[in-house]
């Protein structure tokens, strides 16, 4: 048994046989030619054939994956017929008296170099289209015909990367998973996998000797397991069964409200940490996004994300959720989440240090950029803003002042925005205890139970030595929650829970009794919660 780790772009579990996809050998030899006209004619003929092939692929893709995906082949036709491209090929043939294959390869290399020099990943991805078209023409010139041959019924297609022209030729009824060495979550393979509803992994550093071997793709952990032993197979198959059960549950529960038998309604929203998580939120029928962690924009970067980068991310999520509520939590950096360019001083006790809103209020420039981006994105959906780590009314008032400044700046810049609902996280004992005062200042509360528990019990949850002392259902925490709900309702604002306790099925009944209005949980927890509430 061998394991390879990669990252999953679509989840699910598939068992099958590896089918290693090798691209045609596209290396070309430089050959001197005497008859330049003949060589140019060979190129013209090859282009004609390529266009014929591409038109067929377009027709095939049109019926299989629809017009928007098929459109790429129309673009490929235009590339094959492009005047500049032809001129470049002709020039090389003429000036160097070389064969058409070599001239096409050189031309392709030049275009690839042009796209790859652009400082944008999307632009770099364009190089692949040029290569794909050029390789098609070269293959025709070399007299090679079509390539992909699959044997067997349940194939895990493994490749360096896959182009649309390659996947469209596969017999997709036999493909159970895709695994690539390169690619991104926006790549063609990822999109296709989502359409086909099969697992797909990228960035897997496989060895070519895996071809033909039995394997499992685990799209939940991003693992490719070659020749799995019986135990592993059993574990993963049971995981798959659970997944199938969940899908069945989904079919039964999709579109139904989260209402108890005596008519109490609870909103169930999703916690997400990246734009792409909206897929799984929608798949699980989330009523909205209850916690959009904005940290992913800051972590793992070398510099602050620009307003545009943030705007695009917030806008994408708002649009994807199509009018359902999207609650964006502002920057929660600090403590265990560090980004070096913030240049935060090392702290003795970072959990209680300069973090989250405290950073925002200390460095309003960082805060303002984020607020501008969120407010601008608010036009594209139903966005709310939520501020973490609050301990006082003064903080909330300062935040509101900054919000007003940002709005004035946007107006001055002529940039439109909407007034959005603003709320705070209740995750410090201080904020829970003064929640009656805080409730007068905001539109909603969202209780962050992870930090609230840690601060209330003075227990670091990561510290295993304290396991015996740690009680996740400690009455102190539950009392604080009940108090927050009551204070919120007394001021006519809604109160939700977005920490781990929200997904704790042992507490759901208690939360409903308290009158909690919203539970925000990781997407896979949504339907089990809905089921439980509907049976209450």
């Amino acid at each position: 048994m061998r394991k390879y780790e990669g990252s999953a772009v679509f989840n699910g579990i598939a068992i099958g046989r590896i089918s290693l996809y090798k691209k045609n050998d596209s290396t070309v030899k430089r050959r001197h030619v005497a008859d330049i006209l003949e060589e140019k004619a060979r190129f013209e003929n090859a282009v004609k054939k390529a266009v014929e092939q591409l038109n067929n692929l377009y027709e095939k893709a049109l019926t299989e994956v629809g017009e928007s995906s098929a459109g790429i082949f129309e673009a490929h036709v235009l590339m094959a017929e492009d005047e500049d491209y032809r001129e470049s090929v002709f020039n090389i043939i003429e000036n160097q008296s070389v064969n058409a294959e070599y001239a096409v390869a050189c031309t392709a290399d030049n275009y690839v170099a042009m796209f790859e020099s652009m400082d944008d990943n999307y632009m770099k991805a364009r190089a692949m289209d040029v290569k794909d078209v050029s390789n098609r023409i070269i293959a025709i010139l070399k007299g090679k015909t079509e390539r992909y041959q699959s044997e067997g019924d349940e194939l895990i297609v493994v490749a360096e990367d896959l182009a649309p022209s390659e996947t469209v030729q596969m017999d997709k009824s036999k493909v159970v998973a895709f695994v690539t060495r390169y690619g991104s979550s926006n790549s063609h393979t990822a999109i296709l996998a989502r359409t086909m509803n099969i697992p797909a992994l990228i960035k897997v550093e496989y060895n070519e000797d895996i071809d033909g071997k039995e394997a499992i793709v685990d799209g939940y952990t991003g693992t490719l397991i070659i020749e799995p032993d019986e135990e592993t197979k059993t574990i993963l198959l049971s995981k798959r069964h659970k997944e199938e059960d969940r899908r069945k549950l989904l079919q039964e529960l999709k579109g139904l409200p989260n209402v108890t038998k005596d008519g109490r309604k609870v909103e169930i929203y999703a916690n997400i940490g990246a734009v792409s998580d909206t897929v799984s939120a929608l798949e699980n029928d989330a009523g909205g996004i209850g916690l959009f962690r904005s940290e992913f924009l800051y972590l793992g970067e070398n510099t602050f994300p620009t307003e545009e980068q943030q705007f695009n991310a917030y806008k994408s999520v708002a649009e994807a959720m199509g009018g359902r509520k999207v609650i964006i939590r502002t920057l929660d950096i600090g403590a265990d989440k560090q980004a070096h360019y913030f240049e935060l001083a090392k702290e003795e006790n970072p959990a209680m240090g300069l973090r989250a809103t405290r950073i925002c209020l200390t460095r309003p420039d960082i805060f303002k950029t984020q607020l501008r981006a969120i407010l601008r994105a608010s036009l594209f959906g139903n966005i709310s803003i939520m501020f973490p780590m609050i301990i006082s009314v003064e903080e909330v008032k300062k935040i509101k002042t900054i919000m007003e400044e940002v709005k004035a700046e946007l107006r001055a810049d002529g940039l439109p925005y909407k007034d959005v609902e603003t709320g705070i996280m209740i995750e410090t004992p201080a904020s829970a205890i003064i929640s009656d005062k805080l409730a007068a200042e905001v539109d909603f509360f969202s209780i962050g139970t992870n930090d609230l528990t840690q601060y209330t019990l003075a227990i670091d949850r990561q510290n295993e030595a304290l396991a015996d002392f740690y009680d996740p259902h400690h009455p102190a925490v539950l009392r604080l929650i009940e108090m927050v709900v009551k204070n919120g309702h007394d001021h006519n604002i809604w109160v939700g829970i977005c920490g781990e306790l929200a997904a704790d099925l042992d507490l759901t009944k208690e939360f409903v009794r308290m009158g909690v209005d919203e539970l925000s949980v990781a997407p896979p927890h949504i339907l089990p919660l809905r089921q439980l509430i509907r049976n209450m």
Partner: protein
Amino acid sequence: MKVFNYKIKDSEGIHARPAGIIVKEAKQFASTVTMEYDGKKADCKKIFAIMGLGVKCNEVISVFIEGEDEEKAAEALKTAVENNL
């Protein structure tokens, strides 16, 4: 001559598929169609030329149309750009 400006909304900028649609549209007219971005110009009847401009999301392009059928061409190009980018 006709001119229009447009701010790209497609998150991937001008990539292959929409570039293809613009070229197909431009080729139906006798007028010359030129896209200008960041001081660079590209013939809209050539797909590599407009892809090579490297236009990203939120950037503004200008499209110039000149020729006997410029009225109709400008109208068609504008629709194609608005619907696909």
